[in-house]
Protein backbone atom coordinates (compact mmCIF):
# COMPACT_ATOMS: atom_id res chain seq x y z
CA UNK A 1 0.00 0.00 0.00
CA UNK A 2 1.60 3.25 -1.08
CA UNK A 3 1.43 6.28 1.21
CA UNK A 4 -0.44 8.11 -1.57
CA UNK A 5 -3.24 5.61 -1.40
CA UNK A 6 -3.51 5.99 2.36
CA UNK A 7 -3.45 9.78 2.24
CA UNK A 8 -5.75 10.33 -0.71
CA UNK A 9 -8.27 7.53 -0.44
CA UNK A 10 -8.12 5.62 2.81
CA UNK A 11 -8.09 8.45 5.32
CA UNK A 12 -10.80 10.58 3.67
CA UNK A 13 -12.81 7.39 3.16
CA UNK A 14 -12.57 6.50 6.83
CA UNK A 15 -13.35 10.06 7.83
CA UNK A 16 -16.41 9.97 5.59
CA UNK A 17 -17.60 6.71 7.15
CA UNK A 18 -17.25 8.19 10.62
CA UNK A 19 -19.10 11.30 9.45
CA UNK A 20 -21.93 9.15 8.06
CA UNK A 21 -22.06 7.18 11.31
CA UNK A 22 -22.33 10.32 13.42
CA UNK A 23 -24.95 11.80 11.08
CA UNK A 24 -27.14 8.69 11.11
CA UNK A 25 -26.71 8.36 14.86
CA UNK A 26 -27.68 11.99 15.37
CA UNK A 27 -30.76 11.68 13.16
CA UNK A 28 -31.92 8.48 14.88
CA UNK A 29 -31.29 9.97 18.31
CA UNK A 30 -33.15 13.06 17.16
CA UNK A 31 -36.07 10.91 16.05
CA UNK A 32 -36.17 9.10 19.39
CA UNK A 33 -36.23 12.30 21.37
CA UNK A 34 -38.59 14.00 18.93
CA UNK A 35 -41.20 11.41 19.86
CA UNK A 36 -40.48 12.16 23.51
CA UNK A 37 -40.67 15.92 22.89
CA UNK A 38 -43.92 15.44 20.99
CA UNK A 39 -45.55 13.64 23.89
CA UNK A 40 -44.21 16.13 26.40
CA UNK A 41 -45.32 19.17 24.35
CA UNK A 42 -48.74 17.68 23.66
CA UNK A 43 -49.00 16.86 27.35
CA UNK A 44 -48.11 20.39 28.38
CA UNK A 45 -50.61 21.87 25.92
CA UNK A 46 -53.35 19.56 27.18
CA UNK A 47 -52.48 20.02 30.84
CA UNK A 48 -51.09 16.52 31.27
CA UNK A 49 -47.61 15.40 32.22
CA UNK A 50 -46.74 13.14 29.32
CA UNK A 51 -44.37 10.19 29.85
CA UNK A 52 -43.07 10.24 33.42
CA UNK A 53 -42.41 6.68 34.59
CA UNK A 54 -39.46 5.29 32.56
CA UNK A 55 -36.32 7.01 33.80
CA UNK A 56 -36.11 10.52 35.25
CA UNK A 57 -38.90 12.68 33.68
CA UNK A 58 -39.63 9.70 31.43
CA UNK A 59 -36.45 10.36 29.50
CA UNK A 60 -35.91 6.68 28.71
CA UNK A 61 -39.42 6.29 27.27
CA UNK A 62 -38.28 6.32 23.58
CA UNK A 63 -35.85 3.47 24.29
CA UNK A 64 -38.57 1.45 25.98
CA UNK A 65 -40.89 2.08 23.02
CA UNK A 66 -38.22 0.99 20.55
CA UNK A 67 -37.52 -2.22 22.47
CA UNK A 68 -41.22 -2.96 22.64
CA UNK A 69 -41.59 -2.61 18.86
CA UNK A 70 -38.54 -4.81 18.26
CA UNK A 71 -39.83 -7.60 20.44
CA UNK A 72 -43.14 -7.86 18.58
CA UNK A 73 -43.93 -10.36 15.89
CA UNK A 74 -43.51 -9.33 12.25
CA UNK A 75 -46.71 -10.13 10.41
CA UNK A 76 -46.79 -10.32 6.63
CA UNK A 77 -50.37 -10.74 5.37
CA UNK A 78 -50.82 -13.85 3.23
CA UNK A 79 -52.61 -11.97 0.45
CA UNK A 80 -49.94 -9.29 0.29
CA UNK A 81 -47.31 -8.88 -2.39
CA UNK A 82 -44.40 -9.92 -0.22
CA UNK A 83 -41.29 -8.42 -1.86
CA UNK A 84 -42.93 -5.05 -2.37
CA UNK A 85 -44.48 -5.20 1.09
CA UNK A 86 -41.05 -5.64 2.67
CA UNK A 87 -39.15 -3.23 0.43
CA UNK A 88 -41.60 -0.33 0.94
CA UNK A 89 -40.72 0.58 4.58
CA UNK A 90 -37.02 0.14 3.88
CA UNK A 91 -37.25 2.47 0.89
CA UNK A 92 -39.10 5.10 2.89
CA UNK A 93 -36.63 4.97 5.74
CA UNK A 94 -33.60 5.00 3.45
CA UNK A 95 -34.90 8.03 1.55
CA UNK A 96 -35.43 9.84 4.83
CA UNK A 97 -31.75 9.31 5.65
CA UNK A 98 -29.98 9.88 2.31
CA UNK A 99 -31.17 13.48 2.08
CA UNK A 100 -28.96 14.37 5.01
CA UNK A 101 -25.75 14.11 3.01
CA UNK A 102 -26.27 17.55 1.46
CA UNK A 103 -27.54 19.39 4.54
CA UNK A 104 -24.84 21.78 5.77
CA UNK A 105 -25.01 21.74 9.56
CA UNK A 106 -22.10 24.14 9.88
CA UNK A 107 -19.74 26.04 7.59
CA UNK A 108 -17.82 23.32 5.69
CA UNK A 109 -19.48 20.62 7.78
CA UNK A 110 -21.38 18.83 5.05
CA UNK A 111 -20.87 15.34 3.70
CA UNK A 112 -21.39 16.12 0.00
CA UNK A 113 -21.11 19.77 -0.94
CA UNK A 114 -22.66 19.32 -4.38
CA UNK A 115 -23.62 22.09 -6.78
CA UNK A 116 -27.19 20.94 -7.22
CA UNK A 117 -27.87 20.26 -3.54
CA UNK A 118 -31.36 21.69 -3.50
CA UNK A 119 -32.33 19.73 -6.62
CA UNK A 120 -30.99 16.60 -4.96
CA UNK A 121 -33.19 17.23 -1.94
CA UNK A 122 -36.16 17.81 -4.20
CA UNK A 123 -35.43 14.64 -6.18
CA UNK A 124 -35.14 12.50 -3.06
CA UNK A 125 -38.26 13.93 -1.45
CA UNK A 126 -40.22 13.38 -4.67
CA UNK A 127 -39.28 9.70 -4.44
CA UNK A 128 -40.63 9.40 -0.92
CA UNK A 129 -44.12 8.92 -2.32
CA UNK A 130 -43.13 5.52 -3.73
CA UNK A 131 -42.55 4.02 -0.31
CA UNK A 132 -46.10 4.96 0.59
CA UNK A 133 -47.78 3.85 -2.65
CA UNK A 134 -45.88 0.56 -2.58
CA UNK A 135 -46.87 -0.06 1.03
CA UNK A 136 -50.52 0.70 0.32
CA UNK A 137 -50.68 -1.41 -2.79
CA UNK A 138 -48.70 -4.38 -1.49
CA UNK A 139 -50.79 -4.63 1.70
CA UNK A 140 -53.78 -5.67 -0.43
CA UNK A 141 -56.15 -3.95 1.97
CA UNK A 142 -58.63 -1.25 1.08
CA UNK A 143 -57.77 0.94 4.05
CA UNK A 144 -54.08 0.80 3.24
CA UNK A 145 -54.75 1.50 -0.41
CA UNK A 146 -57.03 4.46 0.31
CA UNK A 147 -54.46 5.86 2.70
CA UNK A 148 -51.71 5.49 0.13
CA UNK A 149 -53.80 7.20 -2.55
CA UNK A 150 -54.58 10.09 -0.25
CA UNK A 151 -50.98 10.42 0.77
CA UNK A 152 -49.63 10.26 -2.76
CA UNK A 153 -51.97 12.87 -4.17
CA UNK A 154 -51.36 15.10 -1.16
CA UNK A 155 -47.59 14.91 -1.49
CA UNK A 156 -47.67 15.56 -5.23
CA UNK A 157 -49.97 18.56 -4.78
CA UNK A 158 -47.86 20.27 -2.19
CA UNK A 159 -44.59 19.47 -3.90
CA UNK A 160 -45.57 21.80 -6.74
CA UNK A 161 -45.91 24.86 -4.55
CA UNK A 162 -42.83 23.85 -2.56
CA UNK A 163 -40.88 23.81 -5.81
CA UNK A 164 -42.06 27.32 -6.61
CA UNK A 165 -41.12 28.51 -3.11
CA UNK A 166 -37.64 27.08 -3.60
CA UNK A 167 -37.46 28.94 -6.92
CA UNK A 168 -38.15 32.15 -4.98
CA UNK A 169 -35.24 31.44 -2.64
CA UNK A 170 -32.97 30.53 -5.53
CA UNK A 171 -33.81 33.80 -7.27
CA UNK A 172 -32.43 35.86 -4.42
CA UNK A 173 -29.47 33.60 -3.63
CA UNK A 174 -28.43 32.69 -7.17
CA UNK A 175 -27.08 29.26 -6.30
CA UNK A 176 -28.31 25.68 -6.05
CA UNK A 177 -25.63 24.85 -3.48
CA UNK A 178 -27.07 24.73 0.03
CA UNK A 179 -24.00 26.24 1.72
CA UNK A 180 -24.09 29.16 -0.70
CA UNK A 181 -27.81 29.58 -0.09
CA UNK A 182 -27.06 30.00 3.62
CA UNK A 183 -24.19 32.43 3.17
CA UNK A 184 -25.83 34.46 0.38
CA UNK A 185 -26.24 38.15 1.15
CA UNK A 186 -29.78 38.87 2.28
CA UNK A 187 -30.69 42.48 2.99
CA UNK A 188 -33.74 43.17 5.14
CA UNK A 189 -36.06 43.96 2.23
CA UNK A 190 -35.28 40.62 0.62
CA UNK A 191 -36.02 38.85 3.89
CA UNK A 192 -39.34 40.70 4.09
CA UNK A 193 -40.04 39.70 0.49
CA UNK A 194 -39.40 36.05 1.35
CA UNK A 195 -41.38 36.07 4.59
CA UNK A 196 -44.76 35.09 3.04
CA UNK A 197 -42.95 32.24 1.28
CA UNK A 198 -41.58 31.11 4.64
CA UNK A 199 -45.10 30.85 6.04
CA UNK A 200 -46.38 28.96 2.98
CA UNK A 201 -43.35 26.67 3.17
CA UNK A 202 -44.03 25.90 6.82
CA UNK A 203 -47.60 24.89 5.99
CA UNK A 204 -46.48 22.90 2.96
CA UNK A 205 -43.98 20.85 4.93
CA UNK A 206 -46.77 19.92 7.33
CA UNK A 207 -48.69 18.56 4.35
CA UNK A 208 -45.61 17.00 2.79
CA UNK A 209 -44.81 14.99 5.90
CA UNK A 210 -48.46 13.98 6.42
CA UNK A 211 -48.60 15.69 9.78
CA UNK A 212 -51.55 17.27 11.55
CA UNK A 213 -53.65 19.15 10.41
CA UNK A 214 -52.98 17.37 7.11
CA UNK A 215 -52.68 13.84 8.51
CA UNK A 216 -55.54 12.45 6.44
CA UNK A 217 -53.50 9.52 5.10
CA UNK A 218 -53.53 8.06 8.59
CA UNK A 219 -56.78 9.55 9.81
CA UNK A 220 -57.77 6.98 12.42
CA UNK A 221 -61.43 7.87 12.39
CA UNK A 222 -61.85 7.24 8.66
CA UNK A 223 -59.32 4.73 7.40
CA UNK A 224 -57.89 3.29 10.63
CA UNK A 225 -54.11 3.46 10.30
CA UNK A 226 -53.88 4.46 6.64
CA UNK A 227 -51.17 3.01 4.48
CA UNK A 228 -49.34 1.38 7.38
CA UNK A 229 -52.35 -0.43 8.83
CA UNK A 230 -51.02 -3.89 7.89
CA UNK A 231 -47.53 -3.31 9.20
CA UNK A 232 -46.25 -4.49 12.53
CA UNK A 233 -43.07 -4.71 14.56
CA UNK A 234 -39.87 -3.61 12.80
CA UNK A 235 -41.49 -2.76 9.46
CA UNK A 236 -43.89 -0.46 11.29
CA UNK A 237 -40.98 0.98 13.24
CA UNK A 238 -39.24 1.82 9.96
CA UNK A 239 -42.29 3.78 8.78
CA UNK A 240 -42.44 5.52 12.11
CA UNK A 241 -38.74 6.39 12.07
CA UNK A 242 -39.01 7.50 8.45
CA UNK A 243 -41.90 9.84 9.19
CA UNK A 244 -40.13 11.50 12.10
CA UNK A 245 -36.79 11.63 10.27
CA UNK A 246 -38.63 13.37 7.45
CA UNK A 247 -40.02 15.90 9.91
CA UNK A 248 -36.52 16.69 11.16
CA UNK A 249 -35.25 16.84 7.60
CA UNK A 250 -37.95 19.25 6.48
CA UNK A 251 -37.23 21.45 9.49
CA UNK A 252 -33.55 21.41 8.60
CA UNK A 253 -34.37 22.40 5.01
CA UNK A 254 -36.52 25.26 6.30
CA UNK A 255 -33.60 26.34 8.46
CA UNK A 256 -31.23 26.28 5.51
CA UNK A 257 -33.57 28.06 3.11
CA UNK A 258 -35.12 30.70 5.33
CA UNK A 259 -33.56 30.87 8.78
CA UNK A 260 -29.90 31.27 7.87
CA UNK A 261 -28.64 27.78 8.69
CA UNK A 262 -25.67 27.83 11.04
CA UNK A 263 -25.40 31.64 11.19
CA UNK A 264 -26.36 33.37 14.44
CA UNK A 265 -29.99 34.59 14.47
CA UNK A 266 -30.88 38.08 13.18
CA UNK A 267 -27.26 38.53 12.09
CA UNK A 268 -26.12 39.41 15.61
CA UNK A 269 -22.32 39.39 15.40
CA UNK A 270 -21.89 39.16 19.17
CA UNK A 271 -23.43 35.68 19.13
CA UNK A 272 -20.98 34.34 16.53
CA UNK A 273 -18.78 32.75 19.21
CA UNK A 274 -21.39 30.00 19.68
CA UNK A 275 -20.57 27.11 17.33
CA UNK A 276 -22.69 27.16 14.16
CA UNK A 277 -23.97 23.65 14.67
CA UNK A 278 -25.68 24.73 17.90
CA UNK A 279 -27.54 27.49 16.08
CA UNK A 280 -28.48 25.02 13.39
CA UNK A 281 -29.89 22.56 15.91
CA UNK A 282 -31.73 25.27 17.84
CA UNK A 283 -33.34 26.67 14.70
CA UNK A 284 -34.34 23.19 13.55
CA UNK A 285 -35.87 22.52 16.96
CA UNK A 286 -37.81 25.77 16.74
CA UNK A 287 -39.34 24.65 13.42
CA UNK A 288 -40.01 21.19 14.87
CA UNK A 289 -41.88 22.83 17.72
CA UNK A 290 -44.24 24.33 15.12
CA UNK A 291 -45.02 20.77 13.96
CA UNK A 292 -45.98 19.74 17.50
CA UNK A 293 -47.77 22.99 18.19
CA UNK A 294 -49.90 22.60 15.06
CA UNK A 295 -50.73 19.04 16.04
CA UNK A 296 -51.93 20.09 19.47
CA UNK A 297 -53.96 23.05 18.23
CA UNK A 298 -55.53 22.41 14.85
CA UNK A 299 -58.32 20.01 13.87
CA UNK A 300 -57.83 17.79 10.83
CA UNK A 301 -58.62 19.24 7.41
CA UNK A 302 -61.29 17.77 5.18
CA UNK A 303 -59.81 16.24 2.05
CA UNK A 304 -61.33 18.67 -0.45
CA UNK A 305 -60.21 21.58 1.71
CA UNK A 306 -56.69 20.23 1.66
CA UNK A 307 -56.68 19.94 -2.12
CA UNK A 308 -58.23 23.37 -2.49
CA UNK A 309 -55.55 24.90 -0.28
CA UNK A 310 -52.77 23.25 -2.26
CA UNK A 311 -53.97 23.87 -5.79
CA UNK A 312 -56.17 26.96 -5.61
CA UNK A 313 -54.44 28.99 -2.91
CA UNK A 314 -50.77 28.06 -2.56
CA UNK A 315 -49.99 27.32 -6.19
CA UNK A 316 -51.29 30.63 -7.65
CA UNK A 317 -49.89 32.56 -4.71
CA UNK A 318 -46.37 31.15 -5.00
CA UNK A 319 -46.45 31.46 -8.78
CA UNK A 320 -47.39 35.13 -8.55
CA UNK A 321 -44.68 35.58 -5.94
CA UNK A 322 -42.05 34.12 -8.30
CA UNK A 323 -43.04 36.68 -10.92
CA UNK A 324 -43.10 39.46 -8.33
CA UNK A 325 -39.73 38.61 -6.80
CA UNK A 326 -38.00 38.23 -10.15
CA UNK A 327 -39.61 41.46 -11.36
CA UNK A 328 -38.43 43.38 -8.31
CA UNK A 329 -34.95 41.89 -8.56
CA UNK A 330 -34.63 42.82 -12.22
CA UNK A 331 -36.04 46.31 -11.66
CA UNK A 332 -33.70 47.09 -8.76
CA UNK A 333 -30.83 45.36 -10.57
CA UNK A 334 -30.09 43.27 -7.51
CA UNK A 335 -30.11 39.88 -9.20
CA UNK A 336 -27.23 37.81 -7.81
CA UNK A 337 -24.33 37.64 -10.21
Amino acid at each position, binding site marked *: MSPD*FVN*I*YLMPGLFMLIHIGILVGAVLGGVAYLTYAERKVLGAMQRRQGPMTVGPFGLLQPIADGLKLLSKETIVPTQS*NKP*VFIIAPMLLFMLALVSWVVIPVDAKLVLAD*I*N*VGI*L*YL*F*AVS*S*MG*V*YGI*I*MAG*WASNSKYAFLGA*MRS*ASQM*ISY*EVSMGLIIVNVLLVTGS*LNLSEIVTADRPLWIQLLLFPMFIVFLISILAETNRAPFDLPEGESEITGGFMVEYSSMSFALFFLGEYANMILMSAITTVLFLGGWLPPFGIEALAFVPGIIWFVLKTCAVLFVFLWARATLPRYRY*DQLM*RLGWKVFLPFTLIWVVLVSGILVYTESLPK
Partner: protein
Amino acid sequence: MVIKMIATAAFYLFSIILLLSALRVITASNAVHSVLFLILAFFNAAGLFVLLGAEFVAMILVIVYVGAVAVLFLFVVMMLDVDFQSLRQNAKSYIGGGLVFGGVMLLELITLYFAWADVQPTLVAEAAVVSDITNTEQIGQVLYTDYVYAFQLAGLILLVAMIGAIVLTHRRRADVRRQKVADQVYVKREDVLEIKEVKTGQGIS
Protein backbone atom coordinates in the same frame (compact mmCIF):
# COMPACT_ATOMS: atom_id res chain seq x y z
CA MET B 1 -6.13 5.49 -10.45
CA VAL B 2 -8.37 4.26 -7.68
CA ILE B 3 -10.99 6.90 -8.38
CA LYS B 4 -11.02 5.79 -12.00
CA MET B 5 -11.50 2.23 -10.83
CA ILE B 6 -14.38 3.20 -8.57
CA ALA B 7 -16.01 5.14 -11.39
CA THR B 8 -15.70 2.16 -13.73
CA ALA B 9 -17.13 -0.18 -11.12
CA ALA B 10 -20.02 2.23 -10.54
CA PHE B 11 -20.62 2.45 -14.28
CA TYR B 12 -20.89 -1.32 -14.62
CA LEU B 13 -23.07 -1.56 -11.53
CA PHE B 14 -25.51 1.08 -12.79
CA SER B 15 -25.60 -0.25 -16.33
CA ILE B 16 -26.11 -3.87 -15.29
CA ILE B 17 -28.98 -2.94 -12.98
CA LEU B 18 -30.37 -0.63 -15.66
CA LEU B 19 -30.38 -3.36 -18.31
CA LEU B 20 -31.73 -6.02 -15.99
CA SER B 21 -34.55 -3.82 -14.74
CA ALA B 22 -35.34 -2.71 -18.29
CA LEU B 23 -35.62 -6.37 -19.19
CA ARG B 24 -37.89 -6.99 -16.22
CA VAL B 25 -40.14 -4.09 -17.32
CA ILE B 26 -41.23 -6.07 -20.36
CA THR B 27 -41.10 -9.55 -18.84
CA ALA B 28 -42.71 -9.02 -15.42
CA SER B 29 -46.15 -10.64 -15.24
CA ASN B 30 -47.47 -8.09 -12.77
CA ALA B 31 -47.99 -4.64 -14.31
CA VAL B 32 -47.23 -2.83 -11.06
CA HIS B 33 -43.92 -4.65 -10.85
CA SER B 34 -43.22 -3.51 -14.40
CA VAL B 35 -43.68 0.11 -13.42
CA LEU B 36 -41.54 -0.32 -10.31
CA PHE B 37 -38.74 -1.79 -12.44
CA LEU B 38 -39.16 1.11 -14.86
CA ILE B 39 -38.57 3.46 -11.94
CA LEU B 40 -35.45 1.52 -10.98
CA ALA B 41 -34.26 1.82 -14.56
CA PHE B 42 -34.82 5.61 -14.53
CA PHE B 43 -32.94 5.85 -11.28
CA ASN B 44 -29.94 3.97 -12.60
CA ALA B 45 -29.92 6.10 -15.74
CA ALA B 46 -29.71 9.11 -13.43
CA GLY B 47 -26.72 7.44 -11.77
CA LEU B 48 -25.04 7.11 -15.16
CA PHE B 49 -25.65 10.81 -15.81
CA VAL B 50 -23.96 11.66 -12.52
CA LEU B 51 -20.94 9.59 -13.57
CA LEU B 52 -20.80 11.62 -16.79
CA GLY B 53 -20.67 14.81 -14.74
CA ALA B 54 -24.14 15.89 -15.88
CA GLU B 55 -25.57 16.28 -12.39
CA PHE B 56 -28.32 18.70 -13.45
CA VAL B 57 -29.71 16.31 -16.06
CA ALA B 58 -29.56 13.47 -13.53
CA MET B 59 -31.54 15.42 -10.94
CA ILE B 60 -34.11 16.57 -13.50
CA LEU B 61 -34.49 12.99 -14.68
CA VAL B 62 -35.27 11.87 -11.14
CA ILE B 63 -37.55 14.83 -10.35
CA VAL B 64 -39.54 14.76 -13.59
CA TYR B 65 -39.61 11.10 -14.61
CA VAL B 66 -39.35 9.34 -11.27
CA GLY B 67 -41.09 11.96 -9.16
CA ALA B 68 -43.94 12.90 -11.47
CA VAL B 69 -44.40 10.87 -14.65
CA ALA B 70 -43.87 7.43 -13.12
CA VAL B 71 -46.14 8.27 -10.17
CA LEU B 72 -48.99 8.95 -12.59
CA PHE B 73 -48.08 5.79 -14.46
CA LEU B 74 -48.27 3.81 -11.24
CA PHE B 75 -51.61 5.42 -10.39
CA VAL B 76 -53.07 4.47 -13.76
CA VAL B 77 -51.79 0.90 -13.61
CA MET B 78 -53.10 0.43 -10.07
CA MET B 79 -56.46 2.12 -10.54
CA LEU B 80 -57.50 1.05 -14.01
CA ASP B 81 -58.80 -2.46 -14.21
CA VAL B 82 -56.76 -3.43 -17.25
CA ASP B 83 -56.61 -7.10 -18.06
CA PHE B 84 -52.93 -7.42 -18.83
CA GLN B 85 -53.13 -11.13 -19.56
CA SER B 86 -55.39 -10.59 -22.55
CA LEU B 87 -53.20 -7.70 -23.68
CA ARG B 88 -50.27 -10.08 -23.55
CA GLN B 89 -52.08 -12.58 -25.75
CA ASN B 90 -52.55 -9.94 -28.43
CA ALA B 91 -48.91 -8.93 -28.19
CA LYS B 92 -47.95 -11.35 -30.96
CA SER B 93 -49.77 -9.27 -33.56
CA TYR B 94 -47.49 -6.32 -32.81
CA ILE B 95 -44.30 -8.29 -33.13
CA GLY B 96 -43.60 -7.29 -36.76
CA GLY B 97 -43.88 -3.58 -36.11
CA GLY B 98 -41.88 -3.92 -32.92
CA LEU B 99 -39.06 -5.70 -34.69
CA VAL B 100 -38.87 -3.00 -37.40
CA PHE B 101 -38.85 -0.28 -34.75
CA GLY B 102 -36.20 -1.99 -32.66
CA GLY B 103 -34.13 -2.79 -35.75
CA VAL B 104 -34.07 0.86 -36.83
CA MET B 105 -32.96 1.96 -33.36
CA LEU B 106 -30.28 -0.73 -33.22
CA LEU B 107 -29.02 0.36 -36.64
CA GLU B 108 -28.83 3.96 -35.47
CA LEU B 109 -26.87 2.93 -32.38
CA ILE B 110 -24.43 0.92 -34.48
CA THR B 111 -23.94 3.87 -36.85
CA LEU B 112 -23.32 6.10 -33.86
CA TYR B 113 -20.79 3.63 -32.50
CA PHE B 114 -18.74 3.70 -35.69
CA ALA B 115 -19.12 7.44 -36.16
CA TRP B 116 -17.98 8.00 -32.58
CA ALA B 117 -14.30 7.56 -33.47
CA ASP B 118 -14.56 10.57 -35.81
CA VAL B 119 -16.70 12.71 -33.57
CA GLN B 120 -14.95 12.14 -30.26
CA PRO B 121 -11.78 14.24 -30.82
CA THR B 122 -13.78 17.37 -31.67
CA LEU B 123 -16.10 16.81 -28.71
CA VAL B 124 -13.20 16.41 -26.33
CA ALA B 125 -11.61 19.58 -27.73
CA GLU B 126 -14.82 21.52 -27.15
CA ALA B 127 -15.37 20.14 -23.69
CA ALA B 128 -11.83 21.03 -22.72
CA VAL B 129 -12.68 24.74 -22.63
CA VAL B 130 -12.56 25.04 -18.88
CA SER B 131 -14.64 27.67 -17.19
CA ASP B 132 -15.62 28.24 -13.58
CA ILE B 133 -19.30 28.36 -14.48
CA THR B 134 -21.15 25.32 -13.17
CA ASN B 135 -23.01 22.98 -15.44
CA THR B 136 -26.39 24.14 -14.28
CA GLU B 137 -25.60 27.79 -14.87
CA GLN B 138 -24.30 26.96 -18.32
CA ILE B 139 -27.50 25.13 -19.26
CA GLY B 140 -29.56 28.05 -17.98
CA GLN B 141 -27.57 30.58 -19.99
CA VAL B 142 -27.76 28.60 -23.21
CA LEU B 143 -31.43 27.75 -22.74
CA TYR B 144 -32.64 31.24 -21.93
CA THR B 145 -30.47 33.25 -24.34
CA ASP B 146 -29.67 31.20 -27.44
CA TYR B 147 -32.73 28.99 -27.47
CA VAL B 148 -35.28 31.15 -25.68
CA TYR B 149 -37.88 30.97 -28.47
CA ALA B 150 -37.63 27.21 -28.83
CA PHE B 151 -37.85 26.89 -25.07
CA GLN B 152 -40.94 29.09 -24.84
CA LEU B 153 -42.49 27.21 -27.73
CA ALA B 154 -41.98 23.93 -25.90
CA GLY B 155 -43.65 25.47 -22.86
CA LEU B 156 -46.61 26.60 -24.98
CA ILE B 157 -47.01 23.12 -26.45
CA LEU B 158 -47.15 21.70 -22.95
CA LEU B 159 -49.71 24.34 -21.99
CA VAL B 160 -51.89 23.39 -24.96
CA ALA B 161 -51.61 19.73 -23.99
CA MET B 162 -52.61 20.60 -20.44
CA ILE B 163 -55.61 22.65 -21.53
CA GLY B 164 -56.60 19.84 -23.88
CA ALA B 165 -56.47 17.29 -21.08
CA ILE B 166 -58.57 19.50 -18.83
CA VAL B 167 -61.16 20.17 -21.55
CA LEU B 168 -61.43 16.46 -22.32
CA THR B 169 -61.88 15.33 -18.75
CA HIS B 170 -63.78 18.23 -17.22
CA ARG B 171 -67.46 17.73 -16.72
CA ARG B 172 -69.86 19.98 -14.94
CA ARG B 173 -72.23 18.09 -12.72
CA ALA B 174 -75.50 19.78 -11.92
CA ASP B 175 -76.41 17.55 -9.00
CA VAL B 176 -73.45 18.48 -6.84
CA ARG B 177 -73.75 21.25 -4.32
CA ARG B 178 -70.61 23.34 -4.55
CA GLN B 179 -69.08 25.09 -1.62
CA LYS B 180 -68.26 28.72 -2.06
CA VAL B 181 -65.46 29.38 0.38
CA ALA B 182 -65.72 33.14 0.11
CA ASP B 183 -69.42 33.01 1.04
CA GLN B 184 -68.62 30.83 4.00
CA VAL B 185 -65.92 33.17 5.19
CA TYR B 186 -68.12 36.24 4.87
CA VAL B 187 -70.89 34.81 7.01
CA LYS B 188 -71.43 37.12 9.98
CA ARG B 189 -72.68 36.19 13.37
CA GLU B 190 -75.94 38.06 12.81
CA ASP B 191 -76.72 35.96 9.71
CA VAL B 192 -76.78 32.66 11.50
CA LEU B 193 -77.33 33.42 15.14
CA GLU B 194 -80.21 35.05 16.89
CA ILE B 195 -80.08 35.72 20.61
CA LYS B 196 -83.37 35.56 22.42
CA GLU B 197 -84.21 36.28 25.97
CA VAL B 198 -86.05 33.24 27.29
CA LYS B 199 -88.41 33.85 30.20
CA THR B 200 -88.86 30.98 32.60
CA GLY B 201 -91.96 28.94 31.94
CA GLN B 202 -92.78 30.65 28.63
CA GLY B 203 -90.31 29.20 26.13
CA ILE B 204 -89.84 30.52 22.62
CA SER B 205 -92.82 30.87 20.36
